[in-house]
């Protein structure tokens, strides 16, 4: 890695601002920023944005246990193609990431993949919502995000205990999948479309109840809570209010929750089934507003691969979840930046340095400065392309965006100085 790599002719954007500059990378670090830089190898960035690598707080890599849908290697490859240099793997594997042995094995496999793989540890053993998992032992391996994602920590008492215990683990954050399972018994948003389609619903209140409760628990314990995949206007209002009171909460939203509505379910196609469910147009507008005003700190994909046959069932029988990492940036550009919901810099904040701060990843999210670890992505902001489910790097094909025309694509991704993606192709 002692080759001099120069990223030439781009516009550098990070939390500190925007400037036109070449970036020189050597030995895995940024060594020079300026104009007219030369290197052994040139990555063309003309007409492109050079940004800190993107960070996804929420991916399901399915390994161990679900390798027919995705592996750590294939999921990380897909993420690198989507501009991500770091991803956080959710614990609902089989066996679950609720103990140091499973965490170590995932970290080991991730170490050789095309982006940094971080692990979210389970809050409770077996993600069953009862006994606390060995959070300290997982923390010692580098785990900073704890969640039972896929399941909500239903008991307020257990949630309080997890929050209190996490205070002994500096930088750790408890992340909640906010859905009350006694209310969210159906398969899509409860509303006009569930009523028309006869598909049992999951009301917005199921999410908002837990968001409201956990804002109170964050306040009670003085400990941060991160809300995964917020999807309703009410949830976002609750988080906005809590933040205004000084409560330590952060939140993420998924691209499908600012792109799609529950009307998509009228096809009865489970490609559109996800938890929390696709909501109404008013909720989509609220997610966009929450991203724009910073109530929502991060865009996280909830990348959830499923084998084809699992989605070739009825809406009610198919598992929830959709692919996300290869389309997230383009959806942010197409749905948020292009229509003027937010500036490019703000969208990158939600995709890179915002989530990096939540996960405590100092090597990611910039700023792009001399001495920094070279985790970067180069983005063509105006390149139009059409999503082709069969050409995605994931093992699974369950994207709801097949055939959709999007604007903005990753040209190069640089992981610790290595150009792992160049000209939109993975290099190893």
């Amino acid at each position: 890695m002692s080759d001099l790599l120069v990223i030439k002719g781009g516009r550098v954007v990070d939390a500190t601002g925007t400037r036109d500059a070449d970036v020189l990378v050597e030995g895995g670090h940024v060594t020079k920023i300026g104009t007219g830089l030369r290197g052994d190898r040139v990555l063309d960035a003309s007409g492109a944005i050079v940004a800190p690598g993107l960070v996804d707080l929420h991916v399901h890599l399915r390994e161990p246990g679900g390798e027919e849908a995705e592996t750590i290697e294939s999921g990380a490859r897909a993420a690198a193609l989507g501009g991500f240099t770091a991803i956080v793997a959710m614990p609902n594997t089989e066996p679950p990431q609720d103990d140091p042995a499973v965490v170590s094995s995932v970290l080991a496999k991730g170490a050789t993949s095309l982006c940094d793989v971080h692990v979210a540890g389970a809050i409770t053993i077996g993600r069953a919502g009862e006994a606390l998992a060995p959070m300290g032992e997982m923390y010692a391996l580098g785990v900073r995000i704890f969640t039972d994602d896929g399941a909500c920590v239903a008991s307020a008492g257990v949630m309080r205990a997890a929050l209190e215990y996490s205070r002994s683990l500096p930088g750790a954050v408890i992340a909640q999948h906010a859905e009350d399972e006694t209310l969210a018994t159906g398969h899509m948003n409860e509303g006009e479309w569930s009523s028309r389609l006869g598909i049992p619903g999951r009301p917005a209140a199921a999410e908002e109840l837990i968001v409201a409760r956990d804002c109170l628990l964050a306040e009670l314990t003085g400990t941060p809570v991160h809300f995964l995949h917020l999807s309703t206007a009410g949830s976002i209002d609750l988080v906005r209010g809590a933040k205004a009171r000084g409560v330590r909460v952060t939140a993420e939203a998924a691209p499908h929750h600012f792109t799609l509505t529950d009307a998509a379910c009228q096809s009865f196609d489970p490609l559109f089934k996800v938890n929390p469910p696709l909501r109404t147009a008013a909720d989509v507008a609220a997610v966009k507003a929450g991203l724009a005003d910073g109530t929502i700190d991060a865009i996280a994909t909830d990348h959830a691969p499923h084998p084809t046959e699992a989605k070739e069932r009825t809406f009610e029988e198919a598992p929830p979840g959709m692919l996300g990492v290869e389309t997230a940036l383009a959806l942010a550009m197409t749905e948020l930046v292009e229509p003027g919901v937010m500036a490019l810099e703000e969208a990158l904040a939600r995709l890179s340095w915002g989530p990096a701060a939540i996960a405590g990843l100092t090597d990611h999210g910039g700023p792009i400065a001399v001495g920094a670890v070279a985790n970067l992505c180069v983005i063509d902001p105006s390149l139009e392309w059409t999503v082709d489910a069969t050409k995605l790097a994931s093992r699974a094909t369950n994207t709801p965006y097949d055939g959709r025309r999007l604007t903005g694509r990753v040209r190069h991704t640089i992981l610790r100085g290595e150009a792992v993606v160049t000209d939109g192709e993975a290099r190893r």
Partner: protein
Amino acid sequence: MRHLLSIDDLGRAGIDEVCDLAESFLQVTQREIPKVPALRGKTVASVFYEDSTRTRLSFETAAKRLSADTMTFSVSTSSVKKGESLRDTVQTIEAMGVDAMVVRHPSAGAPHRVSMWVDAAVVNAGDGRHEHPTQALLDVFTIRRHRGRELDGARVAIVGDVRRSRVARSGAKALAALGAHVTLVGPPTMLPESLDGWPATSVCDLDAVLGDLDVIYLLRIQHERRDAMHFPSLREYTTRYGLTIERAARLAPDTLVMHPGPMNRGVEIAPEVAEGPASVITEQVANGVAIRMAVLYSILGSGTLMSGAGGSGSLGTGAVVV
């Protein structure tokens, strides 16, 4: 009509057409040899993911009376969950050579999904809480036979667990398409969360609407769902929403009493009322065969029929003779 997935596929004209056709087929079913060669050489497969002997028999009888070959694929949901996908299953069945699939499934939209995967015509025989269009057709057909062709202004109450009922959704759509006023009646836990997509009004008090009805339509109470907190007890349900002898006495003399079956006698309907003069419940079953003949014929028929056994009558377009 390529498939029958929802009452929405038909509209008023389509419902009228199927009912007119059924009128002719009803005559066929009353003949000594109740059979016509209309669908000879065609194969109709019943694909049932949910137990329903009545609906399956009704469809298979209809197919046989049209001289179609029939095959049955029935399976418990639990075994399917472990095995092949719905797509694999229906494509396997189609590979055996079928022209139409009659699909019953516990999940909404299953027939829609199937229609995307097979070339055969698909008839929805009940999907989850969504629709049961042939039940709705036989119900409006039955009402028409008593009231005449026009249902404009007819007042119909559908009573019971409307929220979880495909019969109620299809029924309300078909009745409303024909101009009837539909009132959904039940405790709030059994009424739809919202009336979006329901061309109807709703009330919680059965006694308030009882005296002012042309049809009272009782839904079956699902015993097995009682633990799901929708109502306190069967006794309380009967007290508040059952068509008891006392309530039946307050109906107008010509109010029709209907039920899709199978009935819980003594729960949603008193046995004496089910067998009383106002009840057309047995007729509904007989009409079901004629309606399903009409639906299968509309979907699979060539439109040029040979003269069948034992007489002739005009059908649908008038060009068809059975």
